[in-house]
């Protein structure tokens, strides 16, 4: 635990609140490290250097004035390139927004700012969140800190890599079908996708509205709990945000073991199609959970075989709709100005502004919602989604959380992921079920492969019980040190 000293969200905030360290010094250390490490890593699209220095200086002044600084006092936090920060460029990894300046700050970001966070910069991502390797970003490649030739996962690959490389103690991401959990697993850090609607989406650039969740990546579950308590709660700008839930951190504090906690292991998510070494690390983690008191038994989610097709139909249908606004008329990138008609201009803008994967998904979604196909695809996908939700309801009647691997493989090399999109999409099979059901789900490190690539364990809880995923991961992290491992940089 000693290596963690001074680098966790809690320890930084406490040291600044106590006056042991100044926020500007903490920030400068992070900026120095970014300057040293990130040129090779490519986690950040940009640092908000001036803005961050102003914020840090303000925190220090407020500390001197004896003001209450908030739970995130002076903590440098990175935000994914799809969360609006007023006055900063925001692109969602896309050329189509290449020079778009955000006129307001996302609700979830404003909440951490109000609690003293210093916004460090924006992290790289797959274009509009569409990808699992961060390779579809129009900006740059982000490397996995555990190997220059390894992808960081995605779409929140920049956020995961930044935390893994100690460029910041916590980074905000978003998770539509696994975009926080999977890169967290591949980079050996802890990532939480909260219950759908718990953290307001206002100011998050939409991919698939009924699935998008703002989440975070940190070293520890404890830090994620601090963050969640700062950003939870309904917001008038998001009609899908849910009623306030009790804070999570208090439920973690004194927990030393998992006695009385019932853990289900869904057999459909712990076998076929999963790498042997991943299964082995998962079994070891389950044994560990049992050792620290949990009651473990098998569970079943019979409908999850439909989860991937249902997820891709719903996500692409909503994406095709959400991305219709990028037409070159009002803002953002505009294609060939010589276009003779508005229709030609819009076509040209979209054909040249969106990358291949985004265009593929827009076409899939447009097709799936067209007259004559809607009932066959989109509506059927909604039925499958409800079946998956019912499966989870039944499973949670007998257990408090479910566990399974986060990703079927450890981080692949660049260009190694399948060319066939359908094969590629199966890679999300373990994360999309919780997304479809709107459940809180977390990935916590549980070891590594023979060649040193990190492996993550996924913990899924019923709606609104984000605290359970954090609690299980927190107790596990008290008894193991996988989360403390650092890459050689």
């Amino acid at each position: 635990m000693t290596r963690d000293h001074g680098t966790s969200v809690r320890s930084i905030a406490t040291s600044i609140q106590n006056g042991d360290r100044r926020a500007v010094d903490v920030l400068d250390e992070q900026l120095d490290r970014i300057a040293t490490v990130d040129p090779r890593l490519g986690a950040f699209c940009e640092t908000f250097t001036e803005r961050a220095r102003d914020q840090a200086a303000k925190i220090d002044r407020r500390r001197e004035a004896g003001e209450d600084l908030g739970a995130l006092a002076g903590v440098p936090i990175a935000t994914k390139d799809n969360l609006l920060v007023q006055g900063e460029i925001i692109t969602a990894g896309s050329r189509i927004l290449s020079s778009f300046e955000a006129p307001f700050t996302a609700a979830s970001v404003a909440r951490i700012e109000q609690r003293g966070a210093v916004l460090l910069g924006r992290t790289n991502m797959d274009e509009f969140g569409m990808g699992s390797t961060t390779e579809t970003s129009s900006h740059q490649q982000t490397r996995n800190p555990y190997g220059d030739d390894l992808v960081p996962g995605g779409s929140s690959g920049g956020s995961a890599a930044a935390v893994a490389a100690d460029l910041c103690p916590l980074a905000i991401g978003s998770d539509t079908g696994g975009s926080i959990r999977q890169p967290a697993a591949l980079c050996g850090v802890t990532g939480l996708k909260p219950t759908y609607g718990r953290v307001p989406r206002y100011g998050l650039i939409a991919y698939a509205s009924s699935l998008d969740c703002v989440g975070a990546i940190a070293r520890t579950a404890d830090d994620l709990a601090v963050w969640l308590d700062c950003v939870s709660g309904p917001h008038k700008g998001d009609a899908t945000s849910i009623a306030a839930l009790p804070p999570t951190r208090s439920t973690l504090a004194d927990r030393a073991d998992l006695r009385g906690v019932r853990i289900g292991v869904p057999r459909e998510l712990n076998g076929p199609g999963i790498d042997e070494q991943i299964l082995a690390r998962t079994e070891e983690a389950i044994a560990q959970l049992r050792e620290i008191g949990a009651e473990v038994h098998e569970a079943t989610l019979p409908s999850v075989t439909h989860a991937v097709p249902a997820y891709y139909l719903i996500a692409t249908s909503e994406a095709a709709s959400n991305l219709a606004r990028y037409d070159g008329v009002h803002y953002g990138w505009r294609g060939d100005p010589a276009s003779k008609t508005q229709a030609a201009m819009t076509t040209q803008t979209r054909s040249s502004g969106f990358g291949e994967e985004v265009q593929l998904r827009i076409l899939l979604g447009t097709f799936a919602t067209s007259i004559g196909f809607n009932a066959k695809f989109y509506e059927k996908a909604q039925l499958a989604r409800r079946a998956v939700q019912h499966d989870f309801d039944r499973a949670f009647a007998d257990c408090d959380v479910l566990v399974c691997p986060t990703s079927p493989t450890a981080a692949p090399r660049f260009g190694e992921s399948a060319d066939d999109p359908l094969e590629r999409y199966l890679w999300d099979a373990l994360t999309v079920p919780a997304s479809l059901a709107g459940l809180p789900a977390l990935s916590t490190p549980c070891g590594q492969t023979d060649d040193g690539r990190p492996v993550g364990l996924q913990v899924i809880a019923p709606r609104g019980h984000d605290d359970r995923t954090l609690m299980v991961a927190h107790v596990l992290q008290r008894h193991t040190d996988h989360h403390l491992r650092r890459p050689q940089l």
Partner: protein
Amino acid sequence: MNGYTTVIGLEVHVQLGTASKLFSPAPVAALGDPNTRVHYVDLGLPGALPRPNRRAIELATRAALALDSEVQLRSEFARKHYFYPDLPKGYQISQFDKPLALGGAVPCGPNKTCRLHRLHVEEDAGKLTHTSIGTLVDLNRAGVALVEIVSEPDMRRPDEARAFLHHLRDVMRFAGVSDCDLELGSMRCDANISLMPDGSEAFGKKVELKNLNSIKMVERALEYEERRQTAILAAGGTIISETRGWHDELGESRSQRSKEQAPDYRYLPDPDLPPLMLTEAFVAQQRQQIGELPEQRRARFHAQYGLAEHDVRSLAQDRKVGDWFECVVTAGADSKLACNWLIEDLLPALRDRGLHLAQSPVTPDQLAAVIALVQNKTLTQRTSRQVLQHLLDHDVTPNEAVDELRLGRIADEAQLQPLIDAAMQEFPQAVKTFLAGKEKALDALKGHVMKATRGRADHEVLDRMLRAIIASA
């Protein structure tokens, strides 16, 4: 007509009288420089999400209830997709297969009602202005709350469409849903019209008429279209299913686009908006807020004030006129006189001055006072109108107006005596004729006195004095 039966259906957009837009806090205003009444939500900026306006849902519910349309406790917002520069999100938030209300009826003639198909809530699009330098986009209107009311194809004549729209407008105004001003666009109507051979049950190919900016235009356009289609069919031709724009100045419609291929709007339940769930209590509350509707008010005015059918219709057409009328009556005026004064004098006088009733410089109490001055004979019919005009243009009380205009009736014998003397000198013949038994001859003498007093001489006093003076002469 000419062997064909006309079939008409209307689609009416009514702008809800909300202060802010359907899904954004931007203010709703008819005026304002282009693109000044917009919020991130209306601009469709990345990250912006719709936030439903409770007031809009209240007013839409009232609209449905006032039209006897059945409010659905669970309805759904859906995205209607198409690319157009007046639609920043690339889709319009509307309602598709789960609208706010189903069914309903609107009168469209003396003994006929037209059924309604549905009523749903949706946001307005922006406005495009085509100029020589290019197309300008104004998004002030984008996102404004509307209800779309779709009728069944129950109307058979253009004048039924006119009656439908008059009734619909009156009901919407009464229910406080909208001011329904077609010229300002707060009520917009598209009309569908088709012809079929008399006795047929299968509708013909329909034509949609757009650009109808007044109720009269709707009727004129339908009449034109009825003639046009009849001529085509009579000549053995076929009707093309299309959208036609009405050009009122030319008195004709022109084809805009074919409707043979329906566009695919790819309706999708809006994932940013949970289903709209209303409670029975909410609906009951809205029903209470509607108050009296035109039909009910007409019946009550007839029963309570004993007014004739014609008067009742004039008073009950506009809620504010009826309310104003009742204030005059409450201030003590006779109901028949109050009605006449309001309809025949005050409203035309206000119109002349370009004022609405709500802006009237004359209050209901003042009008009641003027009526009382006539009844107590201080004013004659003629001078009372002068007082009304004076009140409209000057900030005075009715009594002050009477003084300022020196309009008080002259019943003072000493004042009238010299005038009568002068009249008798002027018309000696009239005196003789009267003495010979011709009553009528007295009128010439009275007329002379009236002229000299500018109509202020008290008729009874004058009559009595004249007879006495002639008799004693």
